[in-house]
């Protein structure tokens, strides 16, 4: 149990810069989810914290102690790998006990701790089995057990749920969250799955091309994405983006393609001259059927049960996705939607950064 600070960590592999200076302060007991598309550097960052990879520059501090130059074993961290990395020739018990044995704990102490953790994870009856005799979910639990039994300062999860089937993933997700709360161990969790990120994290680190583009709570990331990338990455289906211009002295946006001017909420004022290009973003679930907005030619309807996702095209050919209650589905192939002003996100068209903080 400890805090974690990452200070200006960069990493290059030869000529490629993978991390461009990451700063992050993690509070004691906090669960941080690092999320991003593959190749964004999230795993590299995790491996630098673990000590499996050396940072090109910057420091890593665990519990206030500079561990940048230390071996993984000396950092007192535990890691759960994507493929679990259970030693195939060792029983579940031995897998969990291995780290403790190396640390020279007394035999009875090891047996007690392994048994305790196994009970907690409901794998007590599997202790004598070999990993290949276990199902994916059981292996996952053993991998978790191996981490927990060490009672480390820091848990590191490297996409541990991606090898599980969809149903098990949801169960294990809740399980991990529950355990992490219960144990109160500071955790870093890497994933490319935004649902995992949203549900698990106390805070998210959204990474893009080696940079942490936003560090905030899941709801903050969802409701106030820092830029176009985050806005499009978090949320399913993705946010719609439409080209627009500032208008009305920063109090409205104009969509030239549709001859539509939308007033902005009272407290929002764009810091841009009228006519300046902006990107307007709106989530599919915030579009509502109604007159006086945009007309959408429906191309595809994906029913999800109580709701449906409607894919369509606007008059200028741009795609638009709308998420509707099933009873509000259009019948005639043309759907009219309105854009509620309070649900609009506005981004600088040139930089992609969020406008009107």
């Amino acid at each position, binding site marked *: 149990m400890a805090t974690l600070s990452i200070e200006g960590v960069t990493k290059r592999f030869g000529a490629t810069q993978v991390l461009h200076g990451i700063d992050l302060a993690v509070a004691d007991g906090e669960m941080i989810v690092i999320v991003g598309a593959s190749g964004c550097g999230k795993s590299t960052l995790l491996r630098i914290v*673990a000590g499996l990879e050396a940072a090109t520059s910057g420091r890593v501090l665990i519990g206030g102690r500079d561990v940048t130059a230390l071996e993984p*074993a000396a950092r007192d961290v535990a890691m759960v*790998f994507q493929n679990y*990395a259970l030693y195939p*020739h060792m029983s579940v018990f031995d897998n969990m006990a291995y*780290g403790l044995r190396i640390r020279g704990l007394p035999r009875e102490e090891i047996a007690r701790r392994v048994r305790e953790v196994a009970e907690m994870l409901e794998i007590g009856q599997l202790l004598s089995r070999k990993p*290949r005799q276990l199902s994916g979910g059981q292996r996952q639990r053993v991998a978790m057990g191996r981490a927990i039994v060490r009672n480390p300062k820091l848990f590191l999860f490297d996409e541990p749920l991606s090898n599980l089937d969809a149903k098990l993933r949801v169960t294990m997700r809740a399980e991990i969250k529950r355990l992490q709360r219960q144990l109160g161990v500071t955790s870093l969790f890497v994933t490319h799955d935004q649902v995992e990120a949203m549900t698990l994290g106390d805070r998210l680190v959204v990474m893009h091309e080696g940079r942490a583009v936003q560090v905030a709570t899941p709801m903050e990331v969802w409701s106030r994405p820092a830029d176009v990338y985050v806005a499009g990455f978090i949320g399913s289906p993705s946010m719609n983006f439409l080209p627009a211009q500032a208008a009305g002295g920063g109090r409205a946006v104009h969509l030239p393609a549709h001859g539509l001017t939308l007033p902005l909420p009272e407290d929002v004022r764009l810091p841009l001259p009228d006519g300046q290009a902006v990107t307007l973003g709106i989530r599919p679930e915030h579009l509502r059927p109604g007159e006086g907005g945009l007309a959408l030619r429906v191309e595809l309807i994906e029913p999800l049960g109580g709701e449906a996702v409607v894919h369509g095209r606007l008059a200028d050919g741009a795609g638009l996705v709308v998420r509707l209650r099933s009873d509000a589905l259009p019948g005639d192939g043309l759907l009219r939607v309105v854009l509620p002003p309070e649900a609009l996100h506005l981004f600088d068209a040139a930089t992609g950064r969020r406008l009107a903080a």
Partner: protein
Amino acid sequence: MMLERRSPWPHLWLGLGVLVFAFPIYITLVGSTHDVATIGRGDVPLLPGPHLAENYAAAWRGGVGRFAQTPAALMLANSLLMALLIAAGKIAISLVSAFAVVFFRFPLRMVAFWLIFVTLMLPVEVRIIPTFQVMVRLELINTMAGLVVPLIASATATLLFRQFFLTIPPEYVEAAKIDGAGPLRFFKDVVLPLSVTNIAALFVILFIYGWNQYLWPLLIVNDRSLETIVVGLTKMIGTGDAQNEWNVIMATAVLALLPPVAVVVLMQRWFVKGLTETEK
């Protein structure tokens, strides 16, 4: 199903093949049960004779009088020791060198690997004169060490272990690092147990390789007390006027066959496992 309509011919052909291979061994077995005169006359008996016990006893003790030679018991012991040392040495050395090449990053790593590989690709026969010279300088002529050491490194085994180690997921290394296992601990606790079937398979091959060594033992040893059975066997076949004691020679040949056969039979299960199965 296909099974019912299967033609008998493949099995007949295979059976015939087995007969062709087994026949010389059968002749040897039968020959080792007759007296010296029967074979000396030029007969090739197809049925066992009555002299089994005395022929094998003679071979085991080394014959008497005019026919005295190194006892098969001693030669078998020498061969066994040599083959075991060669097999164990090759396995130990190639395990460690493959471990170094695969799991460590050091300058000129691949150069080292290829150097190992290229030098050891040359069989003993090609480097026999310099090797002999080295052994003379080291005063290892007529010693078990001289017999074993030049044959104790193996490029094939190094390559085999390297290829196997490359299939060990890098996460095991990382998990072990995080668990706090140093390189030697990792070698002992993870790499070795995972390599067991490979080691067993290789042991069979290398034991037989060692057992069958002929040229090198012939050169390096002229002391009868260190003679190996493969060399001893050929020395028993005289070139002069003396009549060869074919019955004893054949008994010795049968004795020489037994240890490799035993190794193959005992290790068969492991051998097949090691060549076909990967435990993951």
